[in-house]
């Protein structure tokens, strides 16, 4: 189930992202993790050990359960990364890939 925006009177400009090939809209000032929760992404990654599904626990850079691939760069902390226009986000499945692989 998606997270929803409250009526907070924000005038932040919309930002367009692509999540797993799907064009979605976020808000300037969002982190990638917040933007993903807002459009209903329930599972952010699968663990390398058992393939168990994971999603953000801390939203503050501690747990690393929000690791995603951003513009081709793997293992990015979604909760610590601000959204940017045109950003491409992919989920990571299974084993951690070394950078650039």
């Amino acid at each position, binding site marked *: 189930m998606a997270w*929803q*925006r409250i009526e907070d009177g924000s005038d932040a400009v919309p930002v367009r992202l692509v999540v797993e090939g799907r064009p979605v809209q976020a808000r300037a*000032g*969002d982190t990638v993790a917040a933007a993903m929760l807002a459009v209903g992404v329930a599972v*952010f990654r699968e663990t390398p050990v058992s393939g168990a599904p994971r999603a953000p*626990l801390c939203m*503050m850079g*501690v747990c690393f359960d929000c690791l995603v691939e951003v513009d081709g760069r793997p293992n990015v902390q979604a909760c610590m990364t601000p959204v940017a226009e045109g950003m491409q986000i992919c989920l990571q499945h299974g084993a951690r890939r070394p950078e650039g692989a």
Partner: protein
Amino acid sequence: MTFTHDLIVIGAGPAGLAAAATGADLGLRTLLLDEQPRAGGQIYRNVTVATRRLHGLLGADYSRGGSLAESVVVTGAEVRHDTLVWDVSPDLVVTGSRGGQSFQVRAPQLVVATGAMERASPLPGWTLPGVLNAGAAQIALKSGGLVPEGRVVVTGAGPLLLLVACQLLEAGVELAGLVETAPAANRRTALRHLPAALHAPSYFAKGLRMIVRLRRAGVPWYTGATELEVTGTDRATGLAFDVGGRRLHLAANTVLLHHGVIPNTQLSRLLRVDHRWSNSQLAWHVVADEFGQTSLSGLRVAGDGVAIAGARAAEAGGALAALGAAHSIGRLSPTERDRLAAPHQKVLRGECAVRPFLDALYRPPPYILAPADETIVCRCEEVSAGRIREMARLGCQGPNQTKFFSRCGMGPCQGRVCGNIVTQLLAAELAKPPHAVGAYRIRAPIKPIPVGSLANLQEMADSVVAKPHESTMAKSSE
């Protein structure tokens, strides 16, 4: 490396903001480094740009951060946001990365103000999507006006649990239940600390207001819950627990956990300064004097990164650390320092008076501190509590050995989440005090950094060798 600044502060929460403002105000060439895009830390996250509606919803305690952030701006201190500090050497060279580019800075005085993080709440099912820390929900609210859709259960122990519950309620969230885990026996021990705590009556007034708010809203409220389990296979479907001899299940789309906060000691651990185990806060504290000076000369710590005392205390601690720094480099006489320190010390004393009461009242239940064998403790490598106990029986004497043999703490979070619990599990199993068991050794980089930014650092080092004049960025006070 020559000194680029007089004072470097890491972290722009209440302690770091106060340290930077105080230092710059005294004329120190001050640099504030912070990983977030804006000042505030987690407690005042986004405070400078939050809308009126959000300020109203989060309350005056939150809005206070706005003037604190402003106080740094007016001093003209240099501030670099979006900056990850990933190494600090024992001679206080700070290596950071910003926008994929690494850089190094150095000052004779360094204040680490990296704050607190939530204690892990290892329960069966806590790794399921849909389970978050209560603080995480608050962060989503502060930074994006986001709240979980559907039914929400909040569970755990601590003032933040009630605060988050109230704020979510205010934001229109459907609270399916508030499930408190603090054992009833906590109240007896807390009572002993009540007289001292009464010196800070505002806490009780705030607590009472929250309780009234939640009661009025008719939120189902359970206390002394045990045998907690987050239900669901691929994602959380609710929380099951025992209370008053009954087993209950509250269906929910989101389960929020909270068992207090503990100091984030990554940087102080990296620098191997002295830490001590606090039996009242069940966490590592950095050993520091009242001006934040640690066992490494020039390295100071301030705020919740030293010991948990809250935002107001952190602000006072940050100011004190900067005063100590100014005195150390000969910019403030001892009498001046002490005169300027007095009001901050008074605030600190007041804020600390209420802590023993809160720590005792909200001490986490034993099943959080020593989870059942099947419960996963290390989320990254999926290592269970039972496996840690087994390691201890096989002869492992501390977290670094269990890490080597079980991979517990070896994943991307580098033991941030499990460290505190693993220390306590081993201490119990080995029948030793936690300080004898120790903590994970921390190595740089303290967070994974793109390979590119390392290469760029190498280039920088080469250019320093090739062109010594350009590398001398500021006055050489060495």
